[in-house]
């Protein structure tokens, strides 16, 4: 077995275990930290398929941005030591059946479908290729979604500020 395969299996196991812990842990701050490990494992897999830029973005935006945001909101809204109450067991069983059923159907399709992987071509995801494609307006260019995303991020930023702003009482002193 190749070394990269072993590394992949280890990282995949870590990701699955920490994902499970993130949705079952009863302490909310720990759930957020487990999510961080699952996301970092994902970044590791991006590194393994040679998408270095995507891996860096994953680490910066997810691990550096979203998880920190989630942890801040946990600190603002919850007691750290408090344990969340357990969901009732009927709900757990029904949801587990749903999840396992969905997993079984998906895995049945995946394992029975014959994928034909293409041999890797010379095109690498280097910074210059990514930049040219991201700002290219010809065939295979992504300048329109790039601009739409920039507007979306601006709107989300303004929206978040407006929503989270405390409503001042009307008296001006």
């Amino acid at each position, binding site marked *: 077995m190749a070394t990269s*395969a072993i590394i992949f299996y280890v990282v995949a196991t870590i990701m699955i275990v920490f994902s499970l812990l993130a949705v079952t842990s009863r302490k909310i701050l720990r759930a957020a930290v487990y*999510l961080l490990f699952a996301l970092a494992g994902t970044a590791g897999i991006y590194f393994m398929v040679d998408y270095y830029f995507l891996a860096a973005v994953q680490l910066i935006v997810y691990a550096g941005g979203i998880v920190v945001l989630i942890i801040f909101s946990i600190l603002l809204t919850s007691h750290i030591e408090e344990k969340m109450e357990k969901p009732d067991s009927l709900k757990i069983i029904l949801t587990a059946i749903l999840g396992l059923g969905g997993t079984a159907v998906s895995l049945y399709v995946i394992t029975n479908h014959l*994928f034909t992987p293409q041999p890797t071509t010379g095109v690498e995801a280097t910074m210059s290729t990514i930049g040219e494609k991201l700002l290219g307006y010809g065939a295979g260019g992504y300048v329109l979604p790039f601009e739409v995303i920039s507007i979306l991020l601006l709107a989300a930023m303004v929206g978040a500020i407006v929503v989270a702003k405390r409503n001042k009482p009307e008296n001006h002193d």
Partner: protein
Amino acid sequence: MIESVPLNQVLIVTTLMFFIGVYGFLTRKNLITMLISVELMLNAVNLNFVFFDRYLFPGKLEGHFFSLFIIAIAAAEAAVAIAIFINLYRNIRSINVEDVNEMKN
């Protein structure tokens, strides 16, 4: 890794991760933990895009850019969601889904 691990096996990992997210979304009652489950699902979808791109359509980089845009959208979504949670906590002192029925009636 592309030569040594077949596509079927990596898709098993992403499928498991996605349905773990579904399980968490349906069993959790705290809004922040539900957001964590949504992030897990988005992450699994990102991985799927990258794997299909890398194994079946190498050199086109389409899945790469889709993942990039999904990450940006996830960031925007998380920012707005957490702003809503904080406003909610300020108003009703709770971020439990069962307490959030202000707009009913």
